[in-house]
């Protein structure tokens, strides 16, 4: 789709991916040219790269608050980290045939779990309430010697809702069960100090925090039994074979260092922009509401369900104005159903399809936010004029009865 000039665009889709910070690009460029050596090599070409990787590992360690730098394993992406963690736990404990996760996980975990069910594993999917919160009692009852691993996301990518993973990891530890968290949305947006938690494994993804795509990390607590996904080399101490993606690892290190410095700004200024955006839209548009748990969520994420209209149509009109966002509508993904996260929270059908996620970064400005607040109401009004559920200034009386099409 052709939009307006991208340089003038307003990017509010930072939970999908982020701009690579200019400082990060600068840091990684030499590793494509003069620093091309293989870090495993003895000679000076390799040695310098090896030292750079060591520095990057320290930078990631600092952001995660890990006790040892050897607990950081570089991978190709968040999905690889998730698969490695879950499959390792199953391989290392062949007698344990159960997994605990949640219904709102990212497909990186959910699709893998569904596949493992076909191979005979029992997967427990924790449900969420209308605000996307878990029932800790339900979780507690499921912990047993049969469970190989618990995998629960730290922050939800769609609603931004946070799960109490530190508390859940503690319960798992008491029960003698391994705990993994997919923290790709949480890392860099929340202070994390892994050495003070019972979290055994954690996944992060570089491109969510202004590093490039194609680099991820699996944090693996020292002493946790582990079986590699990729064998075939001594890299990452034999835990992830394959020649290191040196330039991207250096980039991720730099991005982690910058994230550490920007943490306060995320918590205060980015949150202030998000809150202003959300209030501005809610004030100007009727029949819309915030999904997830507004009191316990990422500082950068805002998910609003606009009733009686469909998300893809909203995105296309926003895109025409140079505003980038995303939606939980079925149509934007080509799947059958609206977002599994919206369905899990029991958001009504006519609203789930109209959910729009606006996710900010520290590169957004208050001026951009003002422009989005101006742009959204007429777009919503325009689409509602086309909607069979809408008439004039409001929904038709008893919309679900007035328009009840026969469904194929």
């Amino acid at each position, binding site marked *: 789709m052709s939009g307006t000039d991208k340089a003038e665009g307003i990017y509010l889709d930072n939970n999908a991916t982020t701009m690579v910070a200019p400082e990060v690009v600068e840091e990684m460029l030499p590793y494509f040219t003069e620093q091309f050596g293989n870090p495993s090599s003895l000679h000076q070409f390799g040695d310098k790269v090896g030292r750079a990787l060591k520095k990057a590992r320290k930078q990631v360690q600092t952001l995660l608050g890990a006790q040892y730098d050897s607990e950081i394993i570089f991978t190709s992406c968040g999905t690889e980290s998730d698969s490695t963690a879950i499959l390792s736990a199953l391989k290392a404990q062949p007698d344990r045939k159960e997994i605990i996760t949640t219904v709102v996980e990212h497909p990186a975990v959910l699709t893998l779990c569904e596949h493992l069910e076909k191979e005979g594993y029992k997967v427990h999917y924790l449900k969420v309430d209308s605000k996307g919160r878990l029932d800790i009692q339900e979780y507690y009852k499921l912990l047993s010697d049969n469970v190989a691993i618990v995998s629960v996301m730290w922050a939800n990518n769609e609603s931004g809702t946070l799960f109490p993973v530190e508390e859940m990891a503690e319960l798992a530890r008491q029960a003698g069960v391994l705990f993994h968290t997919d923290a790709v949305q949480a890392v860099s947006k929340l202070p994390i100090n892994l050495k003070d938690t019972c979290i055994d494994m954690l996944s992060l993804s570089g491109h969510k925090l202004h590093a490039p795509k194609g680099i991820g990390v699996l944090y693996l607590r020292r002493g946790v039994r582990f079986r590699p996904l990729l064998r075939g080399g001594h890299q990452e101490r034999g835990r992830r074979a394959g020649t290191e993606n040196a330039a991207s690892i250096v980039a991720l290190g730099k991005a982690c260092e910058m994230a550490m410095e920007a943490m306060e700004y995320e918590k205060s200024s980015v949150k202030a922009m998000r809150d202003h955006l959300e209030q501005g839209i809610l004030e100007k548009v009727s029949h819309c509401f915030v999904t997830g748990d507004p009191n316990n969520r990422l500082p950068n994420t805002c998910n609003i369900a606009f009733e009686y209209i*469909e998300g893809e149509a909203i995105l296309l009109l926003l895109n025409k104005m140079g505003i980038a966002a995303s939606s939980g509508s079925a*149509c934007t993904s*080509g799947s059958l159903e609206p977002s599994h996260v919206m369905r899990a929270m029991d958001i009504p059908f006519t609203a789930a399809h109209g959910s729009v996620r606006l996710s900010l970064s520290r590169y957004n400005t208050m001026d951009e936010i003002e422009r989005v607040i101006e742009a959204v109401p007429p777009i919503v009004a325009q689409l509602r004029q086309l*909607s069979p559920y809408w008439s004039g200034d409001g929904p038709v009386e008893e919309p679900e009865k007035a328009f009840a099409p026969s469904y194929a």
Partner: protein
Amino acid sequence: MWDYSEKVQEHFFSPRNAGAVDDANAVGDVGSLSCGDALRLTLKVDPDSEVILDAGFQTFGCGSAIASSSALTEIIKGMKIDDALSVSNQDIADYLDGLPPEKMHCSVMGREALQAAVANYRGEEWKDDHEEGALICKCFAIDEVMIEETVRSNGLRTVEEVTNYTKAGGGCSACHEGIEEILTRILAEKGETFDPNAVAGEIKKPKSGLTNLQRMKRIEELLDEIRPNLQRDHGDVELVEVDGRYIYVKMIGACAGCQMAATTLGGIQQHLAEGLGEFIQVLPAEELARRAAMEA
């Protein structure tokens, strides 16, 4: 982002005939479960000539649903309702210079809204006879329900057969895992298991098309076909070894030592050669031992 044609974008950004027609005498409300989209089509039909004088739409749906609705109203305005009924979903998609495969159901929804509106005009009840499922084959836009129904009604057992009947899986082949899952599920209902190495029925494969295992299984099947003839004469045949174009068999029972053994072998050879579609030579198992001794 979807690969929408200029025409789709144009009809989405500036839809024609949006809103309900005043004093409409035909209304069709339909929805598509696969997308959550829904459409109300209102028509004003001249009772004497049965010409559609005006058409309007209200759509709850994505960009292509709105564009398809807009296109539909443009196509049918001025048509006689009988002619309008012959408008297919492909006509709607063509009018828009095509739709992405995942979005073809938007055009189907348009055609159904028209059928529902005409039924409403004629005082009939419209029943939807078509169901949609998750899209399996993206190359040819074939959904799960379509594959399931075809597999059930034709007793299909292999991915290749599914491709021959529905086209699904005939392009990039990325959906073969999905097709195998459907086959596994449907065969399990009948108490059978899906065999990835089964050879498609009624399809002569070229020589190069068979894997070693498939070729051996095919040889076994062909031997099974002629076995009843041998058993009638109190004999039998056993496959001993397959070595390229040489197929070694052991004659059993009355066949062993029969003076007609050479003729029988010739008959087996002809049957196997025809069934495999390649030149082969059938030899007695003793020959295998002799050749091995010579090589040693």
